[in-house]
């Protein structure tokens, strides 16, 4: 009886280990050194922001993503059960709209060789979008049979980008520019005649940063994933002074992926 009991326990353990082994293979890759492809589609939201927020920004009253999306193809290669690498091509469209109250916000607008600069207090509306391609190079760690996390640097290049907006009075009716410095002429600006800006020509056409991707194997060939691209280089050209601080794109994507 004791003998039978021992065998039973042994078989139970063996099958549990076998089951565990089955789970790793079931959710693939089937062999430790397998390579494959992941096709992704996702919804991208986020913003381009100074970090940390400068004290000139007093409140953020509106924020809405502008219908972003990503389609991507990643290739991966596992070196062991746990470790691998992943690289790919991501095509994205991302953008946002924001409205913020600012105080003594240093800005400078240049059009056709004429410059209007000074310190603005009031409401600042910004709309931005970027269409481009990202190439990430990521290390993948398989946390469990169904969970992967990948992280590494990325490099983006933009095909099209814009950063435009307008300034006018805030809800308290305050909106003015002090020309050149805080002792300069005060020029009131309101809704009926907002001052607009467009910094498209002053934006870099590339960006670099860190990408982190979480993949969850929902089905045999289907992943649900979330990723974040954290820009570490400012969106502005070197020497751009119209906005007094560096701004970084930080965008997250949620989507589904087909893998094989």
């Amino acid at each position, binding site marked *: 009886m004791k003998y039978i009991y021992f065998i039973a326990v042994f078989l139970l353990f063996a099958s549990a280990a076998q089951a565990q082994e089955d789970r790793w293979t079931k959710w693939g890759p089937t062999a430790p050194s397998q390579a494959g492809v992941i096709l992704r589609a996702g*919804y991208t*939201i*986020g*913003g381009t*922001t100074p970090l*940390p*927020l*400068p*004290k*000139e*920004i*007093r*409140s*953020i009253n509106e*924020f*809405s*993503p502008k219908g972003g999306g990503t389609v991507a193809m990643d290739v991966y290669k596992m070196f062991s059960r746990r470790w691998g690498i992943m690289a790919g091509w991501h095509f994205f469209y991302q953008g946002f709209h924001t409205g913020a109250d600012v*105080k*003594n916000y240093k800005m400078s*607008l240049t*059009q*056709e*060789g*004429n*410059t*209007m600069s000074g*310190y603005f207090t009031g409401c600042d509306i910004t709309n931005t979008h970027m269409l481009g391609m990202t190439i990430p190079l990521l290390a993948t760690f398989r946390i469990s049979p169904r969970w992967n996390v990948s992280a590494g640097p990325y490099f983006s290049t933009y095909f099209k980008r814009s950063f435009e907006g307008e300034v006018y009075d805030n809800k308290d009716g305050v909106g*003015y520019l*002090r*020309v050149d*410095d*805080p*002792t*300069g*002429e*005060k*020029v*009131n*600006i*309101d809704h*009926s*005649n907002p*001052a*607009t800006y467009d910094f498209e020509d002053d934006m870099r056409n590339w960006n670099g940063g860190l990408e982190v991707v979480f993949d969850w194997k929902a089905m045999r060939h289907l992943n649900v994933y979330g990723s974040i691209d954290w820009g570490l280089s400012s969106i502005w050209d070197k020497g751009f002074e119209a906005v007094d601080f560096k701004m970084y794109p930080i965008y*997250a994507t*949620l989507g589904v992926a087909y893998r094989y």
Partner: protein
Amino acid sequence: MKKPLLLLPLIGVALLSSCIADEPLNAECDIEAVSLSVSEPEAIFYHEYDTLQTVPSAADSIGFLIRYDADVESLPLHLTKTPGAQAYILTEEGYVPFANGMLVDFSEERVQQFRIVSQDGKWSRNYRINVVHDQAPEREHFFMNITFDNYDFNSTGKYHVWYGAEENSISYGQWASGNPGFNLSKSSAKYDEYPTVGIAEGGVDGGPYVKLETRDTGAFGRMVNMRLAAGNLFIGTFDVANALKDAMAATRFGLPFKHKPIKVTGWYKFKAGEQFQNRQGQKVDRIDQPDIYCVMYRNQDAEGNQVLLYGDDVLTSPAIVGLARISGVIETDEWTAFEMEVEYSKEIDDELLENNGYSLTISFASSIEGASFEGAPGSTFCVDNVVIECEY
């Protein structure tokens, strides 16, 4: 799946909002208004409201006008400053802190100097405040000569400004033009590319004259739908603070005047610009015309409030008592004489006249519709040796 996605922007706002830094201290250091406390204002000032002055953002000198036969000693002064700013007054010991209500010696038109330091301590501005006597009324035939000889660069050296130091000018005569507004839109313009420019030689008698030219305001002008700026020069003030918000309200016409104008004469040259355009910049089939008008108006309403005329009512206000306007201007490059009569719609009350109850303005412009940003860029109107003849 939808709902969590919609929540994400909110989470984003919450995250960002939680990162809002402490509010920076105020960087501005303006005197926004100045008032003098007097027990019987009307004994010293012409109007009760003359004891309070709001100060334009660019002004650094504030003068209170009092009756020619009145005198003041030390008066309690009250400054309305940018919140948090600290005021100092210049004394023999240097600048010492000034508190509202302190007595300030304004006898003998003494100029008192103030320094305002911003709340953050990084910025400061100096101001001059004094009390000046008005001219005594004279019941004699009077000619106000406007020669346009007295002009100089503004404080930043960008464009010309005119001041009223001419013989027989309004005592504290003040000329204004739209140049400060043009400066906002065309920072790259040289002084002689502004709409209103003083020319040193070539006037009627060989000396200086004023050249008014309608100018394109460039990209910034288009941005705020003010595509051109007519050259203009007028008695009054130009409030650049409202130049973009409400351009009509930015031109404030007239200063108190103790004479009764009857006729305006002078000399001009005019050339119309090639293409007339409307406010939207569309071509209009029309030949541009310049404009000169002289307006005498009652500067106080029945309730005792101050009346000022602005760009949109300077020719139509019911406060107007007398009006002259040029007509029949021809295109010419020779100095050509003009003359216009002041037509009175209401009788002048001599007692009111002596008590600064009327204000006078005269305005010159290179485009007659320039106030509405319509006209022909390039229209050039030169004016010299204008005389306002007054019955007394």
